[in-house]
């Protein structure tokens, strides 16, 4: 039995194939963007820098940190990676770690890997980066600002990953959101403290010995795009939480699906891979609602990316 308090690695079997595929689709799109952004940032140094940094994250995750009563916390590292490498490079680095953890150690499933990459690789890195930037803007760009930013970014990154995981589990009908969300968010609010402490310690050391490392991360390309992407994802998560699947009353869900005719639509619109397969969850209006949310997410996301691109092009034009 694997028991690490930070485990956000969703195993196979907990998500429906449909949900898994949505995750993979989203992950691949974001990864392709990440590849392009990091090529701009690092050029030929891309491979050795990200590779060794991925090894660093993997090794750093093993450094344990006694929490209480014999359990220990581990660093997730997404926020630290984003603060020191920039958000897109961090996303790739974390993805490398997650792929290997899933493939070699069965820490996280293979079909579920798409969402695992998003939760632990992209959401953590981008939320961490967003938190860091926002707090820095408020607290000033000096040492205090960086440290405060590190604390905020690191804690927020863990929370975001946990909440996203609970939403995916709920969308697959594995655990009702009303139970999973408070549980995950609650536990990880505590774990996030550990993440924040370790991250701020590391940032403090870097700030003291090699501040230029922090500086170069702060000028990494694509930061605005990353902020838009994560805001889009966070908004979508907010919508999902408020949507009907948050209700644990099956009658309520059935009524919603009935009045909106989603249940019938889900069966007939060919979005299922095999026609009419007796999926236990087709009866569950949560899937139907998620289809709508997924559609909404894609639109929000596309708008965010377009806006982000336009913003960074305008900024580049000015400089």
């Amino acid at each position, binding site marked *: 039995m694997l028991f690490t308090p930070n485990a956000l690695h969703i195993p*196979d079997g*907990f998500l429906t194939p449909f949900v898994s595929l949505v995750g993979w689709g989203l992950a691949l799109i974001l990864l392709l963007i990440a590849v392009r952004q990091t090529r701009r940032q690092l050029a030929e140094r891309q491979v050795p820098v990200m590779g060794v940094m991925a*090894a660093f994250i993997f090794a750093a995750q093993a*450094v344990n940190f006694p929490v209480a009563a014999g359990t220990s916390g581990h660093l997730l590292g997404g926020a630290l990676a984003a603060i020191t490498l920039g958000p897109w490079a961090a996303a790739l680095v974390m993805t*490398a770690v997650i792929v*290997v953890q899933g*493939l*070699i150690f069965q820490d996280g499933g293979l079909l579920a890997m798409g969402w695992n990459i998003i939760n632990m690789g992209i959401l953590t890195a981008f939320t961490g980066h967003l938190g860091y930037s926002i707090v820095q803007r408020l607290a000033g760009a000096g040492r205090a600002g960086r440290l405060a930013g590190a604390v905020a970014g690191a804690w927020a990154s863990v929370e975001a990953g946990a909440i996203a995981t609970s939403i995916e589990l709920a969308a697959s009908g594995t655990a*009702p959101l009303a139970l999973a969300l408070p549980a995950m968010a609650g536990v990880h609010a505590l774990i996030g403290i550990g993440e924040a402490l370790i991250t701020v310690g590391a940032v403090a050391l870097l700030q003291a010995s090699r501040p230029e490392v922090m500086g170069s991360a702060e000028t990494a390309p694509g930061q605005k795009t990353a902020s838009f992407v994560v805001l889009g994802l966070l908004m979508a998560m907010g919508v999902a939480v408020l949507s009907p699947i948050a209700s644990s009353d099956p009658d309520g869900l059935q009524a919603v699906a009935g009045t909106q005719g989603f249940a019938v639509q889900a069966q007939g619109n060919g979005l299922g891979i*095999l026609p009419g397969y007796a999926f236990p969850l087709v009866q569950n209006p949560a899937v139907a609602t998620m289809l709508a949310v997924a559609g909404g997410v894609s639109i929000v996301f596309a708008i965010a990316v377009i806006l982000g691109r336009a913003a960074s092009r305008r900024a580049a034009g000015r400089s």
Partner: protein
Amino acid sequence: MHFDLSDAYRPRASFVHRLDPRTKVLCALLAIAALGVIPAGRWALFLVMGALIVGVAAGSRLGAGFAMKRAALALPFVLAALPLPFTTSGRTVFEVPLVGWAASDEGLTRLASLLVRTWLAAQAAILLTATTPFRDLLWALGALRLPRILVSTIGFMYRYLFVLADEAARMLQARSSRAARLGKKRPSLRWLGWTVGMMVGTLFLRSLERSDRVYAAMLSRGYDGRPLVFVQSEMRRADWWALLTTGLILAVLVVIPHLA
């Protein structure tokens, strides 16, 4: 925590080992996908999947129970799924005293099916890594269109994990010897987090410096940023047969529930 990623591989002279790594990756992914699609409660179908996996384990000369023994279940997620019997509506099988939660038989079936799926899926992944050296696995992922940059990053991570883990272990040792000197006073959580943070920061710097030296070494051997790869292996007749057979069996298992 294992840092030698080639740990999982068990060299054997078996026809499974000799298959092209792409074949094995595809078969594993198809099997896991099939597991996800087989509806809850179809125990006969799960049994056939289990038999298939045991068969592959035996055919790989790893021993029939090889994967079964090693497939662990992630506790936090099992806990997350535990409410399933109580939140799924259906015929009540039993009631939890005092709280009065009713466990439905549909819910219990779903929970049990989920656990079986997770367990079998983990076994498929274990067999994949036990029969395929890490480097070949990585090549297969690239050949199956995983972005090249990601493949190269993973390759470097594989190579340097051992080196960095060594450095991390040495720092941990230094920390514990220093902690012993603190004596009875229990260090505060804040202090612990801070020192772990410092260690992590130091490890980061060493890693960054190492990556600079590695880059210089790559340049010295003519690296120019292009992701060149030495073609590894070719699909042979055995590979196509394996893919076909696996695909057919899985297709049959997936279609059966709809024939009723």
